[in-house]
């Protein structure tokens, strides 16, 4: 029989104002197993904890129930207190009478009644608790960063600087990501390449960083401290180790009709190509869909001209397997497709472009050498219209419900840069709201309007009609309460951004959760913003939600610190609440094995002596080091052979009974 102590916390007035503490304390005294029941204003305070410690010793308690706030908040606190008094820490149960009761009920009688039920439930469970001892597991001292944009690079650099090995997996032929495509960065207007490329070089040259470009994660198994990841290195058709990056192949390649991905399709590239001059690694790849050799078997000019003999048409995809202690997701974003917004004539007119396309046009290394020219006729534009919120804040299903966050600032940047360089161009910006929270951000936007004469129009564009070589932009000016028509030469759409498509499959592989927009969810929006709810998986950059470069870098470093904190441990304490199979009940059906997300269940043939006869049966066995205690197996097991320590079927039934009593 257990000797249970119940401790009811007031949480100041947080609980006491809504729940009648005395009633709970008195009711608990009548529960089976309870030998002590008391209350205190702040149970989590040192004074409160010492009351618990003293009571454990004084009453010789075998377990305690603390009626207080969410176990997320103070379960650890109370477990430590119990441990200090010589109790097994898993003999502690929390009844959450704050969030589940006081905070959501107004009626004191009802709240009190529910608090009693919750406390009684915890007691019922505790009566069946058994002391548990956590095991330990090793930590592989190596991190994997998925995505080689600024977020991934920053995380990797910080982890590497702390002395741990890091692999960056990047699906494109080069690292650099979206930031490499940008021209200038707000609010300081320094050139993106000038601040990014040194970091790219640093990552490439760092002893602890290993770049795995043109590669994708194929599968992930394992758990925190010990992930096993299979990475598919796509065939480059170029031997990276002997290529000198001279670029002769790309020059001589006769197939030059592929749209350049890096330049947003605004110009062409060869079939064998290096995405941009500062690409890292500076090794070309052959686009097999475009390559004449791959399409017809003839050509092979690149191989003939290569001085290093690095071209290898027979290269195959290669799968490499590596173990990691931690994984950082830095998969980034892409602009949405504009198929649902044909009223802006993006598909109908070359002169309607996205902001990312404008970045390439403005960039000195871009398709126009940095000259602002209309894509259709390469003429200098005189009037430009920017449309904000294209696809953002859209609840009709055509776009995204969220604010893409970066568009207000980059549009102000574009408008300002254009007015600075070409004062003859009239620039109009249609906006719904201008959102510029951030250090020096609003000042930046105001400078565009006040100093550079950018015409901000509060309203939206309803239609862009390409007419006689111009773009008739029909919009509203809500301040003047009128419809306006602007005859523009170019229209720039501030296109909403969405997570890269790889996020969804990675979420499945890593059992990291994503929200309805496919952004990775954080473990706690305020207090654990860079951790995924899955232990050992961390979030960096826009894959978690829209953010600009300073925020991305800050989050990348934060994620790195979390990784370093994890990798610095030699052993991880494992959760003792793991599943176990009662082999006498197991009938070998394999259901548990099918549903286990961690691959923690194996089946073995075992001899059993039943009624004096030896019988060989197929039974489930749980690898406790791999089990994460999710309980999926216990639910599908038809015979109840699978049980979860700390949350046994019996304990759950006892809880249900206590609630129904």
């Amino acid at each position, binding site marked *: 029989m257990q000797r249970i102590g119940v401790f009811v916390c007031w949480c100041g007035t947080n609980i006491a104002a809504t729940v009648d503490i005395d009633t709970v304390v008195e009711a608990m005294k009548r529960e089976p197993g309870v030998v002590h029941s008391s209350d205190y204003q702040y149970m989590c305070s040192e004074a409160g904890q010492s009351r618990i410690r003293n009571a454990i010793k004084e009453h010789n308690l075998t377990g305690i129930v603390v009626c207080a706030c969410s176990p997320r908040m103070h379960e650890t606190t109370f477990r430590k207190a119990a441990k200090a008094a010589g109790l097994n820490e898993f003999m502690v149960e929390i009844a959450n009478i704050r969030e589940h009761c006081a905070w959501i009920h107004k009626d004191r009688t009802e709240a009190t009644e529910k608090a009693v039920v919750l406390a009684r439930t915890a007691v019922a469970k505790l009566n069946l608790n058994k002391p548990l001892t956590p095991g330990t597991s090793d930590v592989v001292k190596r991190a994997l960063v998925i995505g080689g944009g600024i977020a991934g690079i920053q995380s990797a650099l910080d982890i590497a600087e702390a002395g741990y090995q890091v692999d960056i997996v990047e699906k494109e032929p080069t690292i650099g990501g979206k930031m490499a495509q940008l021209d200038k960065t707000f609010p300081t207007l320094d050139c993106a390449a000038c601040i990014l490329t040194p970091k790219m070089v640093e990552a490439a040259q760092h002893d602890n960083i290993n770049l795995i470009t043109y590669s994708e994660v194929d599968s992930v198994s394992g758990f925190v401290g010990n992930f096993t990841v299979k990475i598919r290195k796509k065939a480059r058709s170029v031997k990276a180790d002997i290529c000198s990056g001279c670029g002769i192949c790309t020059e001589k390649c006769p197939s030059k009709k592929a749209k350049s991905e890096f330049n947003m399709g605004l110009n062409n590239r060869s079939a064998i190509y290096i995405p941009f001059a500062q690409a890292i690694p500076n090794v070309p790849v052959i686009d097999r869909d475009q390559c004449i050799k791959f399409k017809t078997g003839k050509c092979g000019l690149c191989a003939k001209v290569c001085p290093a003999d690095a071209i290898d048409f027979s290269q195959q995809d290669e799968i490499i397997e590596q173990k990691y202690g931690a994984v950082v997701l830095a998969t980034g974003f892409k602009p949405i497709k504009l198929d649902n917004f044909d009223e802006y004539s993006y598909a109908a007119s070359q002169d309607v472009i996205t902001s990312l396309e404008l970045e390439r046009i403005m960039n000195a290394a871009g398709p126009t050498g940095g000259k602002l020219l209309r894509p259709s006729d390469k003429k200098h534009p005189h009037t430009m219209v920017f449309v904000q919120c294209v696809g953002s804040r859209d609840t009709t299903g055509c776009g995204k419900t969220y604010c893409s966050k970066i568009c207000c600032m980059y549009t102000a940047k574009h408008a300002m840069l254009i007015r600075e360089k070409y004062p003859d161009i009239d620039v109009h910006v249609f906006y719904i709201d201008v959102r510029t929270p951030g250090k020096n951000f609003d000042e930046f936007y105001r400078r565009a309007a006040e100093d550079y004469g950018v015409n901000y129009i509060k309203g939206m564009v309803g239609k862009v009609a390409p007419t006689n070589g111009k773009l008739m932009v029909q919009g509203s000016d809500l301040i003047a309460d009128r419809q306006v028509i602007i005859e523009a030469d170019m229209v720039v759409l501030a296109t909403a951004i969405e997570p890269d498509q790889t996020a969804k499959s990675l979420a499945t592989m890593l059992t990291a959760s994503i929200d309805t927009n496919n952004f990775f969810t954080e473990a706690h929006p305020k207090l654990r913003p860079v951790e995924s709810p899955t232990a050992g998986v961390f979030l960096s950059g826009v894959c978690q939600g829209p953010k600009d470069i300073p925020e991305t870098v800050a989050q990348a470093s934060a994620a790195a610190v979390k990784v370093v904190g994890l990798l610095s441990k030699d052993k991880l304490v494992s959760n003792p609440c793991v599943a176990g199979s009662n082999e*006498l009940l197991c009938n070998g059906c*394999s259901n548990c094995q099918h549903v286990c997300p961690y691959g923690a269940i194996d089946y073995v043939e075992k001899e059993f002596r039943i009624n004096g006869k030896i019988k060989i049966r197929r039974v489930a066995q749980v690898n406790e080091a791999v089990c994460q205690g999710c309980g999926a197996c216990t639910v599908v097991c038809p*015979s109840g052979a699978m049980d979860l320590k700390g949350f046994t079927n019996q304990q759950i039934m006892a809880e249900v009974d206590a609630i129904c009593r």
Partner: protein
Amino acid sequence: MQTNNRPVKEIAQEIFAENQAERILGWKRGEFFYDNSPAVFSAADELQEFVYDAFCGSNLSKFLVKEAAKEGRIAVLLKPCDRYSFNQLVKEHRIDKENVLPIEIDCDGMVDIDKVRALGIKGIKSISADGDQLTIETVYGQKNCSKEDVLLLKCQTCKDRTGGDRFALVREIEEMSSVERYEFWRSELSKCIRCNACRNVCPACTCEKCVFDNDKSGIANKANSDSFEESLYHMIRAFHVAGRCTDCGECSRVCPQGIPLHLINRKVIKDLNEFYGEYQAGADDSSVGPLTSYELDDVEPDIVMNRGGGR
């Protein structure tokens, strides 16, 4: 009855004659001509008692769980519908496939003696089938009836013949209001005497020890607080066999109280089909069922509300 135009009994005799198996799982006549029972035959002369006629409704697959674990190869006679249960049990590693010789036999529907009696035919001595017609010898002389009218419930919606719509009744129950539905099941399930026949016959119920018999489960032999608590037994059973039930219909066939238990399973099957695509448990012996596999496009939980499940 014949299979491949050969009497099934001949096939059985051949098995022993050619030493294909040491034992045969089939049917023998029970106390009356209409209650043929599963039986294991271990020698050719035992086959005198062998029978295969319109009263061999029982599904032999489940008996293999015990029988196939014994020494010596066993041949089993499987009607088309029994094959599903056989496959499912092989899939769940409950039958050692290596030790079994499955023989598929033809079936053109099994007869429910109670339905014959319900036609007002009394004093039945024997029944013989001739195609679609039954010839019934009674103490009052010969009678005839159409076989279709007296088929076992499970044979009316046979998976291997063009049967009726097996979900028609399920749909009717779905259309009820929650109150009507509750009353319907309350009245049906109140008849339950907890004889456990449904469980014992069910090929999906082959646990080493059933949770209802396991003292440690916290639910075994629990006193009923009201007459309706018994129904939870059937609901829990339906959930335990969800995704694995082949809809063999044995539960309803054996229920001495005539509770339409198969409807609960069919409701689950219908929902699974709607949520995860058409799936027939036991169609093969290796695929992973809808409830134990995960696909990216699996239904989201809100589907229940969207379908008006809260009705």
